[in-house]
């Protein structure tokens, strides 16, 4: 971990133009543990998709941006707030958790 500075980093990404999902009870997948992450989806006003990442691994902003971009391309959803608590998960695990979370949305999400 020598190359990863200590302390949390917060990153925000937002997307618009997605298909509104409507009201739904919060969805939580994953666990906060080393190399893993927790993803929570909540309904929000408007048609935006806001992603907030709290990560223990600093300095990977561009990779998070790319992961978020690809996620939104796969699942263009709106009216959603996504909160991520990350403990150094790889992009593959992040994408998997996001896909798992979307699968929990009512009547299936666009995919």
């Amino acid at each position, binding site marked *: *971990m020598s190359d990863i500075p200590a302390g949390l980093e917060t990153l925000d990404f937002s997307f618009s133009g997605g298909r509104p999902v409507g009201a739904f009870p919060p969805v939580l997948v994953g666990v906060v543990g080393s190399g893993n992450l927790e993803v929570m989806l909540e309904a929000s006003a408007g048609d935006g998709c806001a992603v907030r990442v709290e990560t223990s691994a600093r300095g990977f902003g561009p990779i998070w941006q790319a992961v978020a971009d690809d996620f939104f391309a796969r699942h263009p959803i709106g009216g959603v707030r996504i909160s991520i608590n990350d403990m150094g998960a790889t992009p593959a695990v992040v994408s998997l958790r996001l896909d798992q979370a979307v699968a929990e949305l009512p009547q299936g999400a666009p995919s």
Partner: protein
Amino acid sequence: MNSSQWTTRADNRALRLARAATALGTRLTGKLVATDAIDVLLDAVLEPGDRVCLEGNNQKQADFLAQALVRVDPQRIHHLHMVQSVLALPEHLDIFENGVASRLDFSFSGPQGARLAKLVSAGRIEIGAIHTYLELFARYFVDLTPKVALVAAHAADAQGNLYTGPNTEDTPAIVEATAFSGGIVIAQVNELVDGTTTTLPRIDIPADWIGFVVKAPRPNFIEPLFTRDPAQISEIQVLMAMMAIKGIYGEYGVQRLNHGIGFDTAAIELLLPTYGESLGLKGKIGKHWALNPHPALIPAIEAGWVESIHSFGSELGMEEYIRARSDVFFTGPDGSLRSNRAFCQAAGHYACDMFIGSTLQIDLDGNSSTATLGRIAGFGGAPNMGADARGRRHASEAWLKAGREARAGRSGAAGTPRGQKLVVQMVETFREHMQPAFVDRLDAWTLQEQAGMALPPIMIYGDDVSHILTEEGIANLLMCRSDAEREQAIRGVAGYTAVGLGRDKRAVENLRDRGVIRRPQDLGIDPRQATRNLLAARSMRDLVRASGGLYQPPRRFRNW
């Protein structure tokens, strides 16, 4: 011409044996040397400049003899040229620090790689070359023949016959090269039997190839190197294993294969009887293996997938299971495993249609290496497993299909019909701590400059790699027709690494249309189905249960 000039090796051996007999006196009985006389024996037998093979491989270690070698007087015995498979124990380098040895030819130095690099840069060790196992064994019979071999066996009888037990490993190759070239073999054993009231379970090395036997005060060290706890296999590894089974094993009908040592391939082993079964692949893939007795293969064996396994070495805890499954493993009349690294390396090279394993770094040409800065490690058997066998002439379905893909549309020598081995590099795009597996330049190049090597230490050359498998997809390099295409195929499965983000998206989509790159969804695999529930065993305890209690894992793998 004086005929005695043609027997200098035999004369020298006789001289050394006589010297030992004189020095040992009553502490030598037949070939049996008293344990506390080991220093006297080495002092009498060794000469300065001798080429010495100290048996050290990735599992079994002649540790007692290694410790004794450290104690010889460097004023009398020096400039030894060590030839050995693996540098594993501190003693293997202590003898260079204290001036007993000066030159080294080897294959792998995993645990001692950093210290070896320091000694080389300090000028304390002159490295001849870093070999593959098979390559080093071959040189034992050409220009690196040992004068003295220090080996480990489980037991000896009064005549000096050796029983190696399941961990035969390198011993036959070392002993044969030494004993038939005027050299002297000294064996440390854990047990002695008298040959009449107690006998060896079987004879692995005949007594007349052996010079001296000494009982070690402690059993020789064996490392359980191939045990992977299923509890540590991740969902991503399950996903990659599903892709491997469906997209490569099933696609090519791979029946004869070798697996690497990591969790990625352990996941494949544990998915055969579950996911593989659901695809209807039982009997169509994975029948014959060149493989150590991997505990992770137990569920597949129990489910009737596996017809045969030949092994390089054994694995601690698998002894009783192997004994009870003698239809599958190579076992002696005594029931225990007979392993043989040289033969198994040959089997993996010539008789297997696929090697699949992992690496630390892959570059844009598909070259891969586990070499990292500040360490001189070598690659053991991987380059022989992970290389097309250019001398192979027998055909199989998988080999022919790979060859057709590689040669389609080519003419002349490059288009002459032949098969090709499947060599699969299976990596997650990021390793732990977000270290990218894909790089623009391998550390191997810098290491070459630092250590003054003739070549960069590349483990598997790009032109031998047939497929690169990551969580993002499978890149089939056999179907690439130019360097640029190969580069985009690699970038196209390199995920969010800098190499992956640097892809030409159009070129990658084009490769995907042609089937050069295949995503999980192209294979009909939903990543969300990739859960640990698919593993036939999810813990060490599950493996024990699957074996009917026959597998007895070493203590460190037990949490019950």
